[in-house]
């Protein structure tokens, strides 16, 4: 039987299609980018080899450093917002509330609304004159807290983090809820009989058993925050004055606008490096899957 499982024919049959597609259309561009980042080129004429100069230039580039900062803020903000809130909502719904189906649909809805539309709506909500946010602050008698949310360099990235949260918390909630529903209900029955409180059940049964999915979800959130593009491009274009610039928008700008493709590739590679670090960190914190069993 083992012989069957080792058969080369089957291994190729199962793995080759995905691997081929991935290698040709995924790996090749990455290698191309690595090579490109060592050049200075606009891709129209001969480029010049500059070695690691693009990277050393990046370290001196204030806009780049600002972008990294913004990305890190987004990662932190997203993790702090999405995971706990999604977990909270998922666990409430999991513990059987009336109308759970209704709530699930509503919470998931924002993630199917396109980034362009989300950007448009929230631009109006954040408007300093007639927007909802400032109107609510007025209502709560806190006019001092009013800001020009998307035009103030200090508040813009935080304003954007909240919009991302609005769009994707429900999506993460659905993922975690699915994991929760996978847990054998008899475990809960046994625990109830033993007199464990709901909180205890959550801590000792639910959390450990959905840990693998939480790890995946964390990876999704972090890599998503690092690569995030659409909403920022539509809402602020990286502005005002690069205050909401993130790595992906800056890479886009240096590539497709100033046509410094070598420099843009270098930015892309730094992004890749950050994603790698994030994934490794997640593995460390959440523990590797193999050790679980």
């Amino acid at each position, binding site marked *: 039987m083992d012989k069957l499982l080792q058969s080369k024919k089957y291994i190729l049959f199962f793995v080759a299609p995905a691997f081929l597609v991935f290698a040709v259309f995924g790996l090749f561009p990455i290698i191309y980018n690595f090579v490109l980042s060592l050049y*200075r080129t*606009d*891709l*129209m*004429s001969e480029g010049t080899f500059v070695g690691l100069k*693009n990277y050393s*230039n990046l370290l*001196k*580039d204030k*806009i780049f450093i600002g972008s990294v900062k913004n990305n890190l803020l987004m990662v932190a903000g997203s993790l702090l917002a999405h995971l706990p809130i999604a977990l909270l909502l998922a666990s409430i719904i999991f513990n059987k509330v009336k109308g759970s189906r209704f709530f699930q649909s509503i919470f998931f809805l924002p993630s199917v609304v396109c980034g362009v539309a989300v950007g448009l709506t929230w*631009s109006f909500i*954040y*408007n*300093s*004159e007639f927007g909802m946010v400032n109107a609510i602050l007025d209502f709560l008698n806190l006019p001092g807290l009013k800001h*020009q*949310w*998307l*035009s*103030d*360099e200090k508040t813009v990235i935080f304003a954007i983090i909240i919009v991302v949260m609005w769009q994707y918390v429900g999506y993460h909630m659905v993922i975690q809820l699915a994991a929760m529903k996978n847990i054998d209900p008899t475990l809960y029955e046994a625990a109830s009989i033993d007199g464990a409180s709901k909180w205890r059940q959550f801590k000792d049964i639910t959390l450990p058993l959905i840990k693998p999915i939480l790890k995946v979800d964390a990876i999704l959130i972090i890599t998503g925050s690092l690569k995030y593009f659409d909403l920022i491009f539509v809402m602020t274009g990286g*502005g*005002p*004055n*690069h205050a909401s610039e993130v790595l992906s928008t800056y890479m*886009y*700008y*240096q*590539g*497709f*606008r*100033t*046509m*410094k*493709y*070598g*420099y843009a590739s270098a930015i892309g590679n730094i992004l890749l490096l950050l994603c790698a670090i994030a994934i490794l960190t997640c593995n460390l914190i959440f523990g590797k899957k193999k050790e679980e069993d």
Partner: protein
Amino acid sequence: MRAKKLLAVVTALLVTAAMLSGCGGSGGNGDGSTKDSAGSKDKVQMTAMFLGSTQDQAVVDIIQDVTDKFNAENEFGVEFKFETYENEQYKTKLTTVMASNSAPDVFFTWSAGYLQPFVEGGKVYEIGQLLDQDSEWKERFNEGVFGPVTYDGKIYAVPHGQTLGVMFYNTRLFEENNVGVPETFDELLAACNTFKENGITPISVPSKDAWIPGQLLQQVANGIGGMDLFEGTVDGSKKWNDDGYVEAGKQLIQLVEAGAFPDGYLGMTNDEGRDLFIKEKAAMYYMGSWDIGLLSDESAPVSKSVGVFNIPPTDSSSGNVAIGDVDQCLAISANTQNTEAAAAYIKMFSDVEAQEAYAYNADYLLSTKTELDESKLNPLFVEITKLQQELTGVTPWLDRVFGAGEGVEFNNAAQAIIAGKDAGVHMDAIQQFAEDNADR
């Protein structure tokens, strides 16, 4: 069982979508942009790419008419197929096709710094050669319009329109508040104070898009350093943190402190800002001449009392300079198979019919000597043309001259200054960026 249900849902989804798309297909102009005429099998296909979305219908109509006419009448056996894209998408698309050597035969371009990288990359055909061979074609154009599309003494694109930056003002509000058209910058400042005291927003400058404060800063700089400052910036003899620009920045801040701009101007979009002027809530509005149509539309309250003037200089020795540029430039890509057919196609855009359409329908000032019937023209159009003739100099928008990079950074700096930040610091930042970017 489950599979069946899933299938049912997916089918329902597709049917709904198909129904909705069915409603659109026949009525809309979806077929418009990629029209094939009968007997197209024998003709050679050539491609063109233009800027324009359903919001720019007047221009798209011109393109459609020219293309139809060319396809029907040309002797090259060629048929043009064109595509139009929205602003941001267009820039990305053109850059991508240039980088991968698959540019269309004919394409729309902005002038100066936008086209320059493509020219230097060898991707643009030197259309000047064909212009020289066809003197009838070249003679159509006004003097000087080829300047912004000439590189190293050679012409690489053909401009079909012009635009000018002007200060639109509400003649009725000016009269009612006893304000005259300002002739110096100080008078402008005083006018702002008067309006402010009487509860009217002086100038509508919606600053969400950085290019809008950018053009204002540039015009104020024009009034300080004139053509000298501009030309010096272009040839590199003057830096971005030149006194002229820093001074201009400080004057912009003077306007901010005088309360010249509407509440919430920093986050205001272009459309909102225009709306403010249209509803007569703002006395002045600094914008390009392309807005004539919207401002003089019958439904606009302001349409009965719109006038124009050029923002006056601070230092009269700088002359009467305004921001202006050529527009609707078309170029031929270097890898085209048939330069003559492409040139003939482009030539039709400066035919009388097309030029008239640009003027009457799309509100572009002309780059050609075409005679226009004043009675068919928007009165504002006539006023702006007169204004243009009184100018001593014209400076294209800096973000066009310098393209992405410094051009965009200039706009960003202007946006920061109009938000009250230090002018010197931000002009220094542009200079720093320019130096860094040269090395990347």
